[in-house]
């Protein structure tokens, strides 16, 4: 199963484009938050067609 690489994730979700929400407040992630969020997804399996993400 293919896994996410950091480069792929950065291309999909550039810094400044990802938000976090607490109740009604939505704000962009800080660069540190974004970097940690990206790192947390590296190595995770990509969805298989027709299994997840259909």
């Amino acid at each position, binding site marked *: 199963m293919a896994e996410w690489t950091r480069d792929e994730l950065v291309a*999909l979700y550039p810094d400044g484009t990802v*938000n*976090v*929400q607490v109740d009604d407040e939505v704000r962009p992630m800080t660069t540190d938050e974004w970097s940690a969020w990206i790192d947390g997804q590296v190595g995770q399996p990509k*969805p298989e067609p*027709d299994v*997840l*993400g*259909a």
Partner: protein
Amino acid sequence: MAFPYSAGDVLTAADLNQSSGLVHVKTQTIGTGVSSVTVTDAFSSTFDNYRVSIDGVASSAGTNMMIALGTSLTGSGYYGSFLYDNYAGPALGIARLVNASNLYLGALGVLSENFYKVEITNPFVSDRTGFATTSYGSSASGWSNGTNASSSSFTAFTIGGQSGTMTGGTIRVYGYNNG
């Protein structure tokens, strides 16, 4: 006054309180392009058991929806199993968590067809918290059960995808009357 009531009965606050079953606590709309949503003041001493309904959320990537108590998805002490079946294909699977940072709710796909019904036991009580979820998303039905093994008391919870961002949908929190 004992339930059921009859025509002409004069109901007191105590009568109304004891006859309430599932009580709405709060509703939260999910924003655009968010990695996680924290719902604060969801749990309190008023109720021991809760139902959280999540529907209409879409993901930027096919992934799984996760939940954790508190204000982030990076907790600890989550144990549980997630079983899923895809009606459109051969996929039938299981995922297990041992001392994980969060718990599965179900599949989270790119279409806004994902929904989750989450039963949460004792999130505010200083005891283990139990989770029982039925879900549907991305052609997959799912059943997830688990626990948070800490004895901490929580007033908030956080949901988010294992990857990608979420857009749209509604989170509703209800409390079960303790009786």
